[in-house]
């Protein structure tokens, strides 16, 4: 499915899922000229929010992007037992994370974020300095490759 970030934001907002946008889309919203296909979010993993998330994922016909090609639906138990949930939805890839950075708690992620106006929605986004920090912690080749652009963007802001 073709990613549709605006519609994904609207769906999350309508479902009342508490989340913070992180990763590539957060970097774009913060002004970094990069390209990405998936929306990464950190969610509050309490019972109420997880319940809302599961209902939304059902509506979005979400499945795990399973390397073995199995048809695996995201259930409450699966979401809770996986810190990283790589999903495919009818609005494109959606990665639901429990944590980011050096194990930042939900409260810490929120403290490192701010709200941006995106269309007619208010979207909570991880700040660029924290995005950079999270990429440094992840320290994968793809994260390291992105760092020069992110750092220069932060300098130019």
């Amino acid at each position, binding site marked *: 499915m*073709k*990613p549709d*970030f605006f519609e994904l934001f609207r769906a999350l907002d309508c479902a009342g899922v508490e989340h913070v946008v992180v990763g590539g889309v957060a970097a774009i919203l913060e002004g970094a*000229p990069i390209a990405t*296909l998936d929306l990464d979010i950190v969610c509050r993993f309490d019972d109420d929010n997880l319940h809302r998330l599961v209902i939304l994922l059902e509506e979005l016909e979400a499945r795990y992007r399973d390397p073995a090609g199995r048809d695996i639906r995201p259930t409450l138990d699966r979401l809770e037992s996986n810190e990283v949930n790589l999903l495919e939805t009818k609005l494109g890839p959606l990665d639901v994370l429990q944590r980011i950075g050096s194990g930042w708690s939900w409260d810490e992620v929120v403290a490192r974020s701010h709200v941006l106006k995106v269309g007619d929605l208010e979207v909570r986004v991880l700040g660029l300095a924290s995005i950079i920090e999270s990429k440094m912690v992840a320290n994968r080749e793809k994260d390291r490759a992105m760092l020069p652009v992110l750092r220069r963007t932060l300098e130019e*802001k």
Partner: protein
Amino acid sequence: MGNPSEPDATPINDSMGDDLGRQAGPAAEPTVEGAFANDGVDLTLIRWMLQRSPTERLRAAQALIDATWVLRNQSET
């Protein structure tokens, strides 16, 4: 980007400034001096993004995906 109502679609002519506050000079020659950081990062692209609202930034990213999808579908048929 592709939308004529978008500010960045406003054509720049020699007699007036554009929506980004640039003043068009008479017969100015383009240069890449200062365009790139010493690590090769294109600073002009970063500044272009920073001059836009978060909505416009995301719209630009979405437009890139949309265009890629169209091209992909065309190549498959």
